[in-house]
């Protein structure tokens, strides 16, 4: 809860990275090659909603992208372009698609070779379309709406998974976890926020859960922001579902979890799909009791990759939280850098081709090598986590599980 502190130290982290990166870069370039001209930098647009209602996510995303750029530059920049450093052209979508589009126009004018970011689906839908007019490659960081990659825009790529994949994986994994525990769960209640994210997810869940043997007792939609979850808790108590499936943003998730704890509700499990707080270190830090045993199916880094663990340590050392916006954006920039290397050019068309043929595994995510089909990275998938004790453990898939699922919840 020391919010003011972490904001400033995040800045200092960036400054440190940038300074360190710059120092190393100048050291590398300056000393032995004083006579060699500094290669022109490669401008990349970094677009996030850093102000407005979703500014926290936007700022986390920007931080991830900037750190990746600093690291890449520190390691020598884009080798096939003579060690050209990546130059971040920062843009603020102000949590509005209209302004996001203006930022895209600005970046296009400044000659960026690609744009990364967007975060919110509503912003991404507008900004990818605007970028397509310039054949400007656009790598979506989070935006999960399926429409983003189904409009046939050749410039649009998404590194992470979309709704459809997330939902079917979530359900598959749930079935597996349930079976492994002897099928204790059969009835389900879905509690979702009522915008694009929550409604879309709830729709898919309602469609697919019954096909897999679950009974959806009730689906409750709530607005963001929601003032009070006591009545939602009442309905949970009335229905007594085995499983509660929340799909909402951080604040509401926390409020719901706390209310459930307050009202002594004890479902067999809380299984979130893209839960706003369910796999958040911040939630765990602030409300450890309410967070225990909560499972999530969400974006997560590959815990087997040392680079990911190192980054986590760096971010946390500065007092920031290692949230999904950070590592997704970091990875996206890495993918872009790889594409630039293989394209050996800053030409937008060449970068699009390089992305389309990308097969890169140097990123932080558990996706395997990238493979974009119609813009969607095929290996992208969510991962199941559970909050156990003081850690967020990966419980599924087995290749990188760090703990076994504890299900059903062992209440005292």
């Amino acid at each position, binding site marked *: *809860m*020391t*919010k003011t502190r972490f*904001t400033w130290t995040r800045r200092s982290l960036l400054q440190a990275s940038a300074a360190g990166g710059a120092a190393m870069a100048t050291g590398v370039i300056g000393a032995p090659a004083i006579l060699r001209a500094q290669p022109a930098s490669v401008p990349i647009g970094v677009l996030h909603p850093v*102000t*407005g*209602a*979703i*500014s*926290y996510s936007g*700022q986390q995303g920007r931080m991830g992208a900037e750190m990746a750029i600093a690291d890449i530059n520190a390691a020598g920049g884009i080798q096939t372009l003579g060690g050209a450093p990546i130059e971040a052209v920062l843009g603020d979508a102000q949590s509005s698609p209209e302004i996001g589009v203006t930022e895209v126009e600005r970046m296009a004018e400044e000659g960026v070779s690609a744009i990364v970011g967007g975060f919110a689906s509503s912003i991404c839908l507008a900004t990818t379309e605007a970028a397509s007019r310039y054949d400007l490659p656009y790598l979506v960081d989070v935006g999960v709406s399926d429409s983003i990659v189904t409009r046939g825009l050749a410039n649009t790529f998404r590194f992470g998974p979309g709704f459809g994949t997330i939902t079917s994986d979530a359900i598959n994994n749930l079935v597996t976890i349930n079976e492994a525990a002897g099928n204790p769960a059969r009835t389900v209640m879905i509690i979702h926020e*009522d915008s694009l994210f929550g409604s879309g997810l709830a729709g898919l869940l309602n469609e697919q859960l019954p096909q897999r043997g679950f009974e959806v007792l009730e689906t*409750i*939609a*709530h*607005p963001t*922001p*929601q*003032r*009070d979850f*006591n*009545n*939602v808790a*009442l*309905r949970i*108590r*009335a229905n007594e579902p085995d499983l509660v499936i929340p799909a909402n943003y*951080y*604040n509401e998730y*926390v*409020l719901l979890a*706390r209310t459930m*704890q*307050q*009202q*002594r509700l004890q479902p067999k499990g809380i299984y979130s799909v893209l839960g706003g707080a369910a796999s958040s270190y911040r939630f765990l830090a*602030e*409300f450890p009791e309410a967070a225990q045993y909560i499972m999530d199916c969400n974006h997560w880094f590959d815990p087997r990759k040392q680079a990911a663990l190192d980054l986590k340590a760096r971010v946390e050392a500065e007092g920031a939280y290692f949230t999904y916006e950070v590592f997704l954006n970091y990875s996206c920039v890495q993918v872009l850098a790889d594409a630039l290397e293989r394209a050996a050019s800053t030409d937008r068309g060449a970068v699009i081709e390089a992305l389309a043929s990308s097969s890169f595994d140097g990123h932080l995510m558990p996706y395997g090598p990238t493979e974009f089909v119609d813009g969607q990275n095929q290996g992208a998938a969510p991962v199941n986590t559970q909050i156990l004790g003081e850690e967020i453990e990966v419980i599924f898939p087995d290749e990188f599980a760090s703990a076994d699922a504890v299900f059903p919840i062992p209440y005292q």
Partner: protein
Amino acid sequence: MFSAFILVPAILNGLMTGAVYALIALGLTLIYGVLHIINFAHGALLMAAMFAAYFAHELLGFDPYLAILPVTAAFFAIGYLLQRFVITPSSHGKDENILLVTLGISIILENLALAFFQADTRTIDTPYAFEIVDLDIAFLPLPRVIAFFAALGVALALFAIMRFTDLGRAIRAVAKEKRGAELVGIDVKHIYAMTFGLGIACVAIAACLLLPNYYVNPQVGNAFVLVAFTIVVLGGMGSVTGALIGGLIIGLVESFGGLFLGESLGQIGIFLIFIIMLLFRPSGLFGQRA
């Protein structure tokens, strides 16, 4: 769905929420009743007071209930100064201008908060936050029970102030007949500012009561503004009793609306009441006929 175990807690929830709404609406109705200002900045000031209480807890270790005293005093002053030196000079005598000025103030406050504190929500953790009052049929979170009684207490206190003190008499005089009040020597400008200050003080108290069980972020005021207006219109602009009863009614409407229509659609109940009241009985349940 209709068992006592659902309905009774829903009623109690509604009443507890309603009491806090009533407290917020009390300030608004007082301000309207005397100054005829619809204070659009009410929600933003609530948000500011919540931030003040938040930082009092985080930086100075003040329990929110203790913080009520300093925060209320501070916001009383802020309200006084705002009314006297910002709102009145800008109004040029038109109602609509005041609406616009208070709208402007709310935009400024909300975005300043966004600029300095970012959009992420903050919560405080107090030792009693998870305590419940266990009535077999319902579990009532302790902070909300406290808020309920505190709100009632403030309403009573306000009523007493208006009825029995000189200040209250002066305020009522100005509300009833401004020229006459001036003629008997009441400093009208001062009374206006005092009233506004009182209204904002109510909001500050509500903020401290809300904090233990709720969260604060720059947008939190928006959630309460329309509800507060609805209550004021329902109860009757200028009526303290009306604000209290209206608040409780709206709390119940929200609770049952959410229970039966779902939280998303249930919000409509409040807005529809608002529209219907405005159309058919703008003076509200307890207000004077306009």
